[in-house]
């Protein structure tokens, strides 16, 4: 079962929930898709076993062959190509690697070359296999790294996907193969507005879903009405707890303390039952 952990904004506790869920699940795979700032490894401290690069293709021009017809410029939806002073020029970071320009070039002046945009590190932390996607600094899109991360996912019983924040392309790529979407939200108005975005996204993708309310104050909160109206099951409420915050800030796995085990065990079992997998 692949569980994607997502939230409309950063800092709600996606990684906190993901790493603790992975440890609770026992033999599991934790995949860090927050490739712009992966931090699951700070909690799990995996021993590095394998490293591979993530490459994308970008066009390279044979200027001698270019006839200046600009067919490639007209084709490129992302404005990654220009033609000035009689020469073509590529903006590689805008290229989405569709390969269309090289196909359409009537002069055969474009060939595809590789460009490295990031890397993937695989390691082991106890029973948890940790796979981390790392986007190189300055790159515009994490999608190619996430795509490669998830196409190689081992077919394990428990796969936890720690998604990037937000609800844009990188998140869509991260939840595409998920069996279940687990939202993490804070009980605030800001938290509600961001939750709405990911809840809509999970609907568009027809994913079964549920929510963890993090930093719950035990009072009536702004999420309740929306959650009941949209029939989003609340799987667990993690209390606003200074001791828990301190553990997390130190990069400790909370479920290694007995007092926090029941929260995540309950969550894990809830997902398996509401996710339709027993």
């Amino acid at each position, binding site marked *: 079962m692949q569980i994607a952990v997502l939230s409309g904004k950063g800092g709600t506790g996606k990684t906190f929930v993901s790493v603790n869920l992975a440890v609770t699940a026992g033999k599991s795979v934790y995949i860090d898709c927050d490739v712009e700032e992966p931090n699951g490894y700070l909690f799990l401290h995996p021993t590095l076993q394998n490293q591979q690069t993530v490459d994308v293709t970008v066009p390279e021009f044979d200027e001698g062959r270019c006839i200046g017809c600009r067919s490639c410029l007209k084709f490129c939806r992302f404005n*990654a190509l*220009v033609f*000035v002073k009689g020469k073509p020029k590529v*903006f590689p970071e*805008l290229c989405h690697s569709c390969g269309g320009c090289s196909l359409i070039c009537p002069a055969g002046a474009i060939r595809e070359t590789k460009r490295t945009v990031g890397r993937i590190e695989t390691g082991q932390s106890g029973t948890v296999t940790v796979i981390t996607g790392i986007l190189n600094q300055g790159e515009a899109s994490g999608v190619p790294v996430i795509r490669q991360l998830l196409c190689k996912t081992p077919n394990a019983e428990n796969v936890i996907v720690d998604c990037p924040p937000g609800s*844009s*392309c990188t998140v869509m790529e991260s939840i595409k193969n998920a069996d279940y979407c687990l939202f993490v939200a804070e009980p605030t108005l800001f938290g509600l507005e961001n939750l709405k975005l990911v809840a809509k996204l999970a609907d568009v993708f027809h994913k079964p879903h549920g929510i963890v309310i993090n930093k719950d104050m035990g009072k009536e909160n702004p999420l309740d009405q929306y959650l009941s109206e949209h029939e989003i099951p609340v799987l667990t409420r993690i209390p606003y707890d200074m001791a828990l915050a301190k553990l997390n800030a130190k990069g400790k796995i909370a479920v290694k303390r007995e007092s926090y085990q029941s929260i995540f065990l309950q969550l894990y079992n809830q997902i398996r039952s509401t996710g339709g997998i027993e």
Partner: protein
Amino acid sequence: MKIAIPSEGQMLESPVCRSFGRTLYFIVVDTDTDKFQVIDNKAAAEQGGAGIKAAQTIADSGAQAVVVFHCGQNAADVLKAADIQLWKAVPGTIAENIEKFRKGELGRLGEIHPGFHGGQ
């Protein structure tokens, strides 16, 4: 010399537009003949790469200089490749900026910002 300026309208009395890549119009003035030409900026509604596409339009117009408030890195790269000078606009109309350019009262655009690129 042909000078291109992003413009909010289609006249010399129009104010200079704050944006380069997403301006609706460019006005290209030929300082030798005082004739001017209005160019629609087809990049204005692009999802991404607007600055690059707008710079391509300017390069194709034959302009040798651009007067702007701001310019992103990618657009600046295209303009530089096309040997187009970048001058700093002052608040006011297109005509006022052209006049200041003639008198040598405009400065070169020193600062190039990294670009205002949205989400992915």
